[in-house]
């Protein structure tokens, strides 16, 4: 899209149309990408509730979490952090799991890394 001139845009940086954030593709900002792991998703929608970019895709009719909108997801990892299934994955006392552990429900893997 050709950038607009000062005469063509609303004054003062105002945005006159509501709900146009969807037009701004922020997926390219991502350093880490959310992917589904081995643990079974319980479709609790915690990730959907917390995602700051509305990037959790759901099938509302069947009440299923179906994946990630990678055109807008910035890779903040909040979905993985709030996932209650992730916190139930067995680990040794005092041991941290790696963010990309394959046993997790939502894993964060380095963007650009090819696997599977």
């Amino acid at each position, binding site marked *: 899209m050709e950038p607009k001139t000062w005469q063509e845009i609303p004054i*003062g*940086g105002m945005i*006159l149309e509501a709900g146009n954030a969807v037009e701004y593709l922020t997926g390219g900002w991502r350093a880490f990408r959310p992917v589904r792991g081995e643990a079974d998703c319980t479709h609790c929608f915690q990730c959907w509730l917390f995602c700051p970019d509305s990037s959790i895709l759901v099938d509302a009719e069947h009440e299923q979490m179906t994946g990630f909108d990678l055109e807008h997801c910035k890779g903040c990892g909040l979905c993985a952090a709030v996932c209650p299934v992730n916190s139930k994955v067995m680990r040794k006392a005092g041991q941290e799991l790696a963010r990309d552990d394959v046993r997790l429900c939502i894993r964060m893997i380095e963007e650009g890394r090819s696997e599977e």
Partner: protein
Amino acid sequence: MSTFEALTGDLAFATAMRQINPDVVAAYPITPQTETVEHFADFVADGRVDTEFVTVESEHSAMSACVGASAAGARVMTATCANGLALMWEIVYIAASLRCPIVMSLVNRALSGPINIHCDHSDVMGMRDSGWIVLFSESGQEAYDNAIQAVRIGEHPDVLLPVAVCQDGFITSHAMERVEIYEDTDVKGFVGEYRPQWSLLDLEQPKTYGPLDFYDYYYEHKRQQVEAMEQAQRVIQEVAEEFNHKFDRNYGLFEPYRLEDAEVALVVANSTAGTAKVVVNQLRDEGLKVGLLKPRVFRPFPGKELADALRHLKAVAVMDRSISFGAMDNAGPLFLELVAALALHGVRVPVADYVFGLGGRDILPGEIESVYQDLIRAAERGQVERRVTFLSVR
């Protein structure tokens, strides 16, 4: 019918606020502006205005509340001075950038430190690049008249900028003068109703104010502010013309006083212009061809018009009630900008700067007369003795 009342400059401005009846006023008291806020609080308490009066904990909050209310579509006014303005600083720029037509009484006072509550222009000169329109007032009458016009100027669809109306701390703000107060209905008729084009409270068409604005469009928004300033010069004159027609008081970009046939002239703003007029009259009685130019509109700076008004003179002195520390010759800001205007518009006249009155130091007719005597010598020699004089400093 208008009435003549004995009012301080602060109360004159508060009276304009009462007649304008703004939707929101958010202000914090600071000497010597306090009286304006006190009197306006009385008008609110007595039910004489419908204004939502927001008492805040600081000037930073006052200006923030003003920006929010203005974005919501309200007609907004406030008042401050000196350190209060300094505390507003961050939001002063935001008010202009978000194109909020807030009208502010700025009672000029020295910036600390050492701490001082008396008059000079160091507060307003600091905000000269902030994007606000700045009007000077010689008297309580002019502060009152400028307040009424400021509403129309700022809210004009081609402008949409905040406006600061200056008057001198204590000298004007606390001195009681005869002020003509127009009929409430006439003032209300003149300012009209504010119909904001983009209200945040318009739930049918929601919009966003103040989003992140990076290298892709920030520059374009600054260019728009330039356009608004350019339009403002025309709008200020149109509003003045309508005001002059309705209230029979003559305002323009500046006031020339016995300037037309003068050979030397002084440029000085606010209350000192009143003192200087007395000196001009005395010297004229002695047969000296002296004149005065009193700037009214400082932002936008009418460089060409000022240069043209001073073109015929043999010597010019600027009196600055502030110093631009470290600027060329440590001169005052009014001088520096006027010198640039004269040079750009081909006016080759000896010009000198006289810094005076800092921190409320009295400026007496005899001192102004000494400036005119310097000017007359400069006119004879074709050059000034000193470029910058710190008048009456010990």
